[in-house]
């Protein structure tokens, strides 16, 4: 059943615009709580009794009924509703006695009346009638004029008009031939208590007055036009004569005359609520004596205990639980102490799988309702603790295995934090929460409290810049994806709380973010109206008045105009505060670029890569400056140091650290050989199946080799399958087993079972086992996994982290949306393609260094020759440089020779460079010089 049909059946109307009285069938005189409850019960019972009572429409209606009931059950709200009801009634009651029942009247203009008595007026007339009433803001003098005008326009007689007014709820709110259910709305029930409300003569007199006013207006208009036709030319002539003959006007006067008039005040949009009693910055204090005592006891017991007993486990649980709940209110020393005690206890007690699982589960328990304030606080702490544990070098193997599982649960999406420190990991967890929390704003009643808790966590683990960044990111997401601010109180409160973490006038990041919102089409004008209204009402940004409030119907042009005003307000505020006038984006960029180009070239690959990234940041900023986005460029450059620091600190946690084999290596193999000698197949099989319970996680080299041998060559076939299944199921994290399996594989001996097992182990897709590439790919997958588990792939993780950052910086210079994560070479290729797009319409007489077609082919050839990841990035980097030269020489032909020399010297320097990282730096610096030329600044000599 459709929602309309359901409403019709239960409420007797399809309209969704009826008030709580009409919805529940109550009147102001009969709306005491027991009336309300009776009405609700009755309506809900009717809904329940019908078929399809559990569908969405029924649920929606139930919610609506409950909402109306909750309004009427609230004494304050009920009083307000009743007052409104009476006010409207009094305003209507200024006319004649209430007419008799509307059904007794007939429309005099021939509008047919339906069987139920509802008049049958043209829809356009009814629409105009309602519009007139609504736009006048209720039943008042203005409404009368407009309604009468609407009647006159549609040729409705006075009686019919009165009839239409009195029966409007019937005709608008119900379909034809439907009886009106519930009391008539107050606005049209003026005569309910016998008081005069509106009579026909009143209506007719207003109608006549309206007709007369219209005639008068027409005459006045014609007279005005006639006068204007005569007076305006004369006035122009007089002004011209005065201007020519008279003295020059005083510039000051002219300026005063030209000063724009004060902007028209607009009605203030709904603004954001304040966040009183919602203290974001929690006061911190040392650990309480009781809790410090618990930690002390735990430390002592764990040091003394040889195994994990129940008492110690309880102590650990108590410390972990309290830590999860209260870590934010502990000072730094307290948090440190808590971490140390828990980690030490895990070291001492997590010696077997079961103990490790118990302890780690207490640190990171399952949380079905993690979005509750306590839940998300605990979750952030759990992730921080797991990160700390992941970085512990000598953690017992069982604990590492369990920690790894928990860690993967939290970092399954997004880029995991590579730093092992608590704060960074907690920030990562908090960032991951943004999307679900934004989603919860619309549906969770406690969403605001959760957001407050989230902000408290953020401020605890972040410096001001980081906290501001997260707050701005959340605010943007809320504006883009959250509910309409003008209708959602909780969304408004959340936004106000987030704004409290932002330094609007002192932070470039905040300015850029706010300006960007004005450009963001997914942020509605309605939401901007609320934001701008908040800015004006709180005086967050000086110099903005009501005229800055974004109209809810603002188009792109108006938004751009207001964005400009916002930028000007900041500039003016800066100058008023005595700050030096901001240099243009270009000057600022050139100043910084010059400094970078004269820095000495570093020595180690890592340092060179950092230097390259720094230059790359500036090249990306140049692209933004060129695109007229100096604020974004400034924002980008302001984040260089922190992003570099993050990347340099990044040493990916070692999830793959080799686990120490447990048990005497080879004992199991001896038993297996014995069973094999006795041809005890069942025993052999059981030995393989029981192996994981005897030796968990990893095998020693002897057992690993024997098990791998069985998996590859075991007889009979089902023995192989059992071994493969055991490896895939229990030793997928055991590097010894995987390496043995890889090293014992023989070409041309593939089978489907083996392939499937390797896919399970490595989670990589393999070619068909009959494919000639299968052996190479399958073996490589196993080797990669083994190397990863041994930590071999993380040996120089900082280089990978910096490479990722380089890719991100290249992505930043793309003036369009790009995939969230890009390989460095892909990012450089996209950058090249962007230059090509710019170059395509250009037709230089002497293209430098070659035609666009040739540049593209050269790029492809370079990328094919330099087929390793660093070389491929360099190939596209060089292609970008060539394309940039092509564009710049086309735009500035006079600089052609300068650019040609630049390319030549770059080639020579590349050839003389010590390593690939230095080559990346040389190419990136050359690109900076091209940008300098493009900005009109002669490229500096030297400095490569």
């Amino acid at each position, binding site marked *: 059943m459709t929602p309309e049909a359901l409403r019709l059946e239960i409420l007797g109307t399809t309209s969704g615009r009826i008030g709580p009285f009409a919805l529940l069938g109550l009147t102001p005189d009969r709306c005491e709580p027991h009336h309300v409850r009776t009405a609700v019960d009755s309506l809900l019972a009717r809904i329940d009794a019908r078929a399809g009572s559990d569908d969405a429409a029924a649920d929606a209606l139930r919610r609506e009924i409950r909402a109306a009931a909750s309004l009427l059950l609230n004494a304050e709200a009920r009083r307000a509703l009743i007052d409104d009801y009476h006010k409207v009634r009094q305003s209507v009651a200024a006319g004649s006695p209430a007419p008799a029942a509307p059904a007794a009247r007939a429309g005099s203009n021939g509008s047919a009346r339906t069987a139920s008595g509802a008049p049958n007026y043209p829809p356009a007339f009814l629409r105009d009638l309602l519009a007139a009433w609504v736009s006048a803001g209720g039943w008042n003098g203005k409404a009368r004029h407009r309604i009468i005008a609407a009647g006159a326009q549609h040729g409705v007689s006075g009686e019919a008009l009165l009839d239409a007014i009195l029966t409007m709820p019937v005709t608008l709110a119900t379909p034809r031939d439907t009886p009106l259910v519930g009391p008539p709305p107050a606005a049209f029930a003026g005569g309910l208590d016998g008081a005069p409300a509106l009579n026909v003569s009143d209506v007719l007199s207003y109608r006549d007055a309206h007709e007369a006013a219209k005639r008068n207006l027409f005459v006045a208009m014609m007279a005005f036009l006639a006068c204007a036709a005569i007076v305006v030319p004369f006035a122009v002539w007089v002004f011209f004569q005065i201007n020519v003959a008279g003295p020059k006007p005083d510039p000051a006067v002219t300026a005063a005359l030209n000063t724009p008039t004060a902007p028209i005040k607009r009605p203030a949009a709904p603004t954001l609520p304040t966040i009183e009693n919602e203290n974001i910055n929690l006061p911190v204090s040392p650990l309480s004596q009781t809790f410090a005592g618990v930690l002390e006891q735990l430390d002592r017991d764990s040091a003394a205990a040889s195994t994990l007993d129940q008492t110690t486990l309880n102590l650990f649980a108590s410390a972990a639980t309290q830590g999860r709940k209260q870590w934010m209110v502990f000072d730094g020393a307290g948090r440190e102490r808590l971490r140390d005690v828990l980690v030490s206890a895990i070291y001492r007690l997590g010696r077997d799988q079961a103990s490790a699982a118990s302890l780690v589960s207490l640190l990171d328990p399952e949380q079905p309702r993690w979005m509750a304030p306590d839940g998300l606080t605990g979750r952030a702490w759990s992730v921080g603790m797991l990160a700390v544990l992941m970085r512990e070098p000598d953690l017992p193997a069982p604990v590492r295995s369990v920690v790894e599982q928990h860690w993967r649960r939290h970092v399954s999406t997004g880029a995991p934090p590579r730093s092992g420190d608590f704060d960074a990991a907690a920030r990562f967890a908090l960032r991951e929460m943004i999307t679900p929390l934004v989603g919860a704003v619309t549906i969770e009643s406690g969403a605001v409290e959760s957001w407050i808790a989230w902000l408290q966590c953020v401020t605890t683990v972040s410096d001001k810049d980081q906290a501001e960044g997260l707050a701005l990111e959340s605010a943007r997401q809320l504006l883009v994806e959250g509910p309409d601010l003008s209708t959602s109180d909780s969304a408004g409160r959340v936004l106000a709380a987030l704004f409290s973490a932002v330094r609007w006038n002192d932070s470039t990041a905040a300015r850029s973010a706010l300006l960007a919102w004005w450009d963001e089409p997914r942020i509605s004008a309605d939401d901007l109206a609320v934001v701008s209204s908040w800015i004006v009402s709180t005086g967050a940004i000086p110099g903005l008045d009501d005229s800055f409030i974004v109209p809810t119907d603002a188009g792109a042009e108006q938004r751009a105009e207001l964005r400009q005003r916002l930028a000007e307000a900041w500039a003016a505020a800066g100058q008023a505060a005595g700050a030096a006038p901001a240099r243009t984006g270009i000057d600022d960029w050139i100043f910084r670029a010059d400094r970078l180009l004269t820095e000495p070239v570093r020595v180690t690959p890592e340092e060179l890569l950092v230097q390259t990234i720094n230059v790359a940041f500036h090249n990306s900023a140049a692209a933004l400056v060129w695109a007229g986005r100096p604020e974004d460029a400034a924002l980008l450059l302001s984040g260089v140091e922190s992003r570099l620091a993050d990347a340099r600190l990044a040493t990916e946690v070692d999830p793959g650290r080799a686990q120490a084999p447990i048990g005497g290596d080879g004992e199991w*193999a001896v038993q297996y050989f014995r069973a094999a000698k006795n041809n005890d197949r069942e025993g052999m099989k059981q030995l393989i199946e029981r192996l994981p319970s005897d030796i968990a996680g990893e095998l020693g080299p002897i057992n690993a080799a024997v098990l791998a041998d069985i998996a590859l060559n075991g007889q009979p076939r089902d023995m192989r399958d059992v071994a493969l299944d055991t490896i895939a199921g229990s030793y997928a994290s055991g590097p010894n087993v995987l390496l043995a399996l890889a090293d014992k594989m023989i070409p041309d001996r593939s089978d489907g079972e083996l392939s499937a097992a390797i896919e399970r182990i490595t989670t990589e897709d393999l070619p068909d086992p009959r494919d000639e590439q299968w052996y190479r790919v399958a073996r490589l997958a196993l080797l990669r996994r083994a190397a990863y588990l041994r930590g071999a792939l993380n040996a120089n993780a900082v280089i990978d982290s910096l490479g990722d950052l380089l890719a991100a910086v290249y992505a930043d210079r793309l003036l369009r949306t790009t995939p969230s994560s890009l390989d460095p070479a892909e990012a450089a290729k996209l950058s090249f393609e962007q230059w090509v797009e710019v170059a395509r319409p250009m037709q230089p007489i002497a293209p430098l260094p070659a035609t666009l077609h040739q540049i593209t082919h050269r790029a492809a050839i370079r990328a094919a*020759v330099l087929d*390793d990841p660093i070389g491929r990035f360099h190939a596209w980097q060089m292609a970008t440089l060539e394309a940039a030269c092509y564009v710049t020489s086309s735009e500035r032909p006079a600089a052609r020779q300068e650019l040609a020399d630049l390319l030549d010297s770059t080639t020579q320097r590349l050839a003389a460079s010590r*390593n*690939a990282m230095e080559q990346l730096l040389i190419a990136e610096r050359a690109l900076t010089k091209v940008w300098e030329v493009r900005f009109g600044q002669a490229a500096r000599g030297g400095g490569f």
Partner: protein
Amino acid sequence: MQRALITTLCAMLLLAATPSLAQEPPPAAAAPAESSPADQGALSMDARLEQLSPSDPEAYFLLGEEAIDEAQLDLAVRLFVLAARFDGDRFGRSACLALAEIEKRRGRSMEERDLRSLAALLSDSETVESPEALGLKEAEREFRRAASLLSSMLGFYRQGDGQKALAALELNDATQRLAKEFGRSFGSIGQIMSFCRNYPRCPTCRNERIIKCPSCHGGASPGQCALCGGQQFIICNICGGEPGERIAPTDLDSMLLFEVALQSGEQASWSARMAVDQARARPVLDLSMLPRWYEINTTLTVYRDGQWTMP
């Protein structure tokens, strides 16, 4: 058979497309020579070299072609490099193709690939050769195959199976090149091969790691044999259950990283790639690099008294 035929056809087409070696005149070959080829042929090579002058780069180029015919490849290389140096616009591309052919004869496929790529970069035509046409993809496939073979060989070596390791490695230009790369990081691959020759497998357990108890010969009941405790089998007492050479954990990590990076190609991480080549500088595909590649001093441009000197 078909593959050989295709390879031959490709080689012929490549020769035909190479102006210098297909005996087509180079871009400026149409210019009149000072003396006829017959006269030139009558002179010794030394005498003809002494006639060369930087003002006539074409003579260098033509003599370079003759040097190839006389199998004087080093001399030919110098002449082509000098011709390209004197007049890159006219002789650069042709010199690269000629040098590529020389490298092909020398069996140095990577150098050949780089030179052909450089020739393609120098093409002033709008129709530039695709990477496939330049044989780059084939070279990459060859490289991948070689990397896989080397990795297999190392795998068997790790398992102490010298016999299989030796059988797995097919020595050719690509594998030798990779072996050289490997040597930069881990020492000579020759040493590994030497070990494999001397240690085909554990002589006692034949790499099974477990042997019958030499004391009771696998016939003891539980608790009866002092050596095996009645288990009937023991861990090999010669190799200790781990046949082959002991590899330090850090070396093993580096070896794995090397293998993974080599075989992953473009997909390798930057750090893995750095472990393979220590971030060695990438070749710069530019004509001006030819003298550097061949370590030829291009200031010594004239031949006098049996040696190259400055004019």
